[in-house]
């Protein structure tokens, strides 16, 4: 009996040691894929880097590639190697090996914003910092254009001749595509055109319908009118969902949302799916620097502001759609249509839970400045001054029950 126990223990111990030796912790640090070539886990770039897309022409511009080569040879090759094989003399002894840029599969999985983030922040950010990366951060030493140039030169090692974008490398958005297929296709459709089978059932022959990601019109943005949203805007919509403006078909929807909240989905997965969503619309790659609407600090709520806001509400013709008391029953309300020629309801401003773009003062301010593309809600960014916008924000919020209580409290 004892002999059998000892034998079993010895076998178990032997197996554990064997497993530990086959895959010791030191090599696990190199990431999940292509680690034999120094590959690192290609985690999504954080939000602040998510909208950094290298201009398409940079990847193949001989002048930029030459500029990148000069920088690479003086700053990067000592670790990454003259041939981009990750075997530079200073890189050989690093705990986290430099990647092999000749590895077509590994490079194809790297998104441009990930690449730019890595060059900019080096090993100073997680998860690379925790793995002992010695990669220096180059953001303070290389300009944005210099970093693009280095990436363009590094890209040449993989032998790919075109721009480094998702439609050239679908594997870079493979995880997001899988999440999209499971979570988004029923409403947004296989191609993301907003034509899924479930979407129309939520509001038959009425707006809102699921977003067509291939079009240029996105309602919820922090970017000026007519522009595509930022990744942070998409992230906010995905996280919070979209509240319903009411109607019989939306009764019983969880939290009165016509699009569910995905706040329980891990952040990394939300970022992955958004990278896939952006890959459906080349406009995200073809636009230049992304500008966002600045929301100034909120002033103090005073009775005078509310009085001025009430006048603006009438002068700016808000009441034509939203009605004098903000119930969404203005004289124009029955005739409103969206860009798909579908009837659309004016939001009932007395019910904050129905504010689709958020009900905090800064959310309402942003909505007034950007408008809601594809709907009759215009942008007031050019016609009202910031102070006037705040007057209007406070008046709009005062129309709801919570707003009236705040108003009473401010007096």
């Amino acid at each position, binding site marked *: 009996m004892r002999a059998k126990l000892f034998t079993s223990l*010895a076998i178990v111990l032997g197996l554990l040691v064997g497993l530990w030796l086959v895959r010791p912790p030191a090599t696990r640090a190199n990431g999940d894929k292509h680690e034999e070539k120094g590959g690192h886990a290609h985690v999504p770039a954080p939000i602040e880097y998510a909208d950094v897309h290298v201009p398409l022409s940079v990847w193949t511009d001989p002048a930029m590639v030459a500029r990148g080569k000069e920088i690479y040879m003086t700053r990067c090759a000592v670790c990454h190697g003259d041939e981009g094989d990750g075997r530079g003399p200073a890189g050989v002894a690093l705990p986290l090996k430099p990647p092999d840029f000749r590895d077509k599969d590994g490079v194809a999985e790297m998104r441009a914003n990930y690449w730019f983030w890595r060059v900019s922040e080096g090993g100073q950010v997680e998860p690379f910092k925790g793995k*002992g990366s010695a990669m220096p951060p180059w953001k303070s030493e290389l300009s944005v254009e210099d970093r693009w140039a280095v990436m363009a030169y590094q890209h040449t090692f993989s032998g790919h001749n075109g721009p480094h974008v998702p439609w050239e490398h679908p594997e870079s958005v493979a995880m997001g595509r899988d999440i999209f297929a499971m979570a988004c296709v029923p409403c947004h459709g296989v191609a993301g055109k907003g034509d899924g089978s479930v979407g129309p059932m939520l509001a038959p022959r009425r707006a809102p319908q699921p977003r067509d990601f291939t079009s240029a019109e996105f309602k919820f943005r922090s970017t000026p009118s007519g522009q595509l949203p930022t990744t942070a805007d998409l992230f906010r919509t995905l996280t919070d969902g979209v509240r319903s403006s009411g109607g019989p078909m939306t009764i019983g929807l969880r939290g009165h949302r016509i699009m569910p909240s995905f706040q329980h989905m891990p952040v990394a997965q939300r970022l992955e799916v958004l990278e896939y969503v952006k890959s459906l619309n080349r406009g995200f790659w073809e636009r230049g620097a992304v500008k966002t609407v600045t929301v100034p600090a909120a002033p103090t709520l005073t009775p005078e502001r509310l009085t001025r806001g009430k006048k603006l509400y009438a002068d700016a013709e808000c009441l034509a759609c939203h009605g004098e008391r903000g119930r969404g029953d203005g004289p124009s309300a029955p005739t409103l249509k969206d860009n798909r020629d579908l009837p659309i309801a004016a939001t009932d401003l007395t019910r904050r839970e129905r504010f689709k773009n958020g009900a905090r003062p800064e959310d309402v301010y942003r909505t007034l400045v950007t408008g809601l593309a594809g709907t009759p809600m215009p942008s007031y960014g050019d016609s009202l001054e910031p102070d006037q916008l705040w007057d209007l924000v406070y008046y709009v919020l005062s129309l709801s029950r919570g707003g009236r209580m705040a108003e009473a409290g401010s007096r």
Partner: protein
Amino acid sequence: MSKAMFVIVAFFVVGVVSVAHSVADEAPISGTVKAIDTSAKSLTLQTTAQGKTRDVTIVLKPETKIVKFARPTEPRKSGFVEQPLTLSDLKPGWIVSVTTKHEGGNEVAEIVTVVLEKP
């Protein structure tokens, strides 16, 4: 299985584990030079491993090599040439990689490689 067999297996396991641990100890450490003590012949690195940032003091022996790699100055030569440095050449803020071994409770450097000289 006899007791003798079990003892042999146990010794084998302990031996393998010990070797594996000593290999792990010699994994290179990279980090930012925080301090240099030329009299004690040591340098302190701020390093992060397994998610934890810590300061590691590394002792240098006379046979420890400190090197950096530079482009050759001779025309038409490519690649890099190894340039020897001394401990006093290192500066705080530089990023280095150090291969070490564990000796008498100390991390002892075998080769210190400069990855980046920060101005």
